[in-house]
């Protein structure tokens, strides 16, 4: 499978990139990590007129501690996130999730921004960003705007980013005292796309779950908050009964997609199992603090 013909450009600045995007519009594809774009090109599923390589845009790189949040540049490679002490110390949910992302070679090139912008429904980073209530910064010919993660993921591979905008960075709030994080996913093989997954941020004191954010990925069209499950656990003491109640709420929260790996019923069941296990793990972590 050889890619179809296309033009290639490697802008040195964001404004050059915007110029190209405006010239080619829908016929352009942005090349960042390439781990998702290149397979579609090689398989001729995508036949753009131009591939715009943004890998030289230094302003999109780097991880920095901004005090109340951590800034992760869109071009930050997954491996940099994995090896960052800032992430380990200040973003424990990301630190727990990142080893699940694909494999070594993919993490060496794939980018945080690429994962968020593509918004594959089984991807880990979008789910974590949503759980953390992060903010994404996009920039276009008309300037920058900030979009809350809650407002960013619209549907299957559809986000709030306009076609002429480039994702610049993610801003993820640092862990606050009292917050615990837990991440679980089920994949057929290590590094595979998740069949089901939960990213959880909770405030737990004693055995009481004061509040929790449960984000589901791998089963829905986009990373999805389990609103009913979250409401069911708010202010409650952790118990087996609570676990059942919270899981049952997913019947309304989730509408899993059937695919080659399993039925909607299977996915819903797995998300319920993961919910109980994730909350149990969060409670354990709170106890250990």
């Amino acid at each position, binding site marked *: 499978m050889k890619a179809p013909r296309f033009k*290639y*450009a*490697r*802008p040195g600045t964001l404004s050059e990139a915007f110029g190209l995007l405006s010239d080619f519009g829908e016929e352009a594809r942005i090349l960042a990590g390439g781990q998702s774009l290149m397979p579609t090109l*090689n398989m001729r599923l995508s036949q753009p007129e131009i591939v715009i*390589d943004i890998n030289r845009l230094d302003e999109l790189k780097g991880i920095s501690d901004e005090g109340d949040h951590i800034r992760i540049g869109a071009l930050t490679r997954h*491996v940099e996130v994995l090896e960052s002490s800032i992430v380990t110390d200040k973003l424990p949910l990301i630190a727990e999730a990142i080893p699940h992302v694909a494999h*070594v*070679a993919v993490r060496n090139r794939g980018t945080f921004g690429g994962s968020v912008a593509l918004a594959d429904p089984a991807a880990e980073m979008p789910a974590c960003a949503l759980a953390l209530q992060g903010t994404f910064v996009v920039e276009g010919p008309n300037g920058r705007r900030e979009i809350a993660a809650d407002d960013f993921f619209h549907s299957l591979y559809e986000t709030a980013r306009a076609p002429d905008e480039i994702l610049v960075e993610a801003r993820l709030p640092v862990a606050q005292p009292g917050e615990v994080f837990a991440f679980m996913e089920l994949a057929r093989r290590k*590094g595979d796309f998740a069949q089901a997954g939960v990213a959880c941020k909770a405030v737990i004191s004693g055995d009481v779950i004061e509040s929790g954010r449960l984000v589901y990925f791998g089963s829905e069209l986009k990373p999805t908050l389990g609103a009913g499950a979250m409401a069911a656990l708010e202010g409650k003491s952790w118990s087996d009964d609570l676990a059942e109640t919270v899981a049952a709420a997913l019947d309304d929260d989730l509408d899993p997609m059937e695919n080659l790996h399993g039925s909607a019923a299977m996915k819903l069941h797995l998300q319920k199992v993961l919910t109980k296990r994730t909350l149990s793990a969060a409670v354990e972590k709170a106890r250990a603090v």
Partner: protein
Amino acid sequence: MADEKIDIALTVNGENVTATVPARMHLVDFLRTELELTGSHLGCEHGICGACSVRVDGVVVRGCLMLAAQCDGSNVVTIEGLSDSEEVADLQDRFVERNAMQCGFCTPGMLMTAAELLAKNDELPREQIREFMSGNFCRCTGYHAIIDAIETTMKDRKAGGAR
């Protein structure tokens, strides 16, 4: 600026290379057809099997998922270069002794990935060696011998064995 034929200048296995490449040509096709470095292999061209693994700017990547064009200015090391440098000569010897390959098609990719494992870790439990290697498909060995060879090399190095 936007073109279908791109001039590139890069380093491959320590040698300066200049070429004009089709924009659509991926790195491994460039290495194999333009530079006749046939040690990197193609098993899927969609980034799953790892047969195409090469080192670009110091890290192992899926060579089929990089355009030759985007490697302008980069430092590329293939299995040929890795071999000549003797960086993993001990690992290669263990592979032969342990018969950690059969058809050999996955082997260059396995070695490129294992080289990164060894560079980043001086000690790793067996399950984590398996995890590190879990992005490289082998159909012949069932992995047991490959993991043995890597584990032995790691232990020998830690014990101060010759590299």
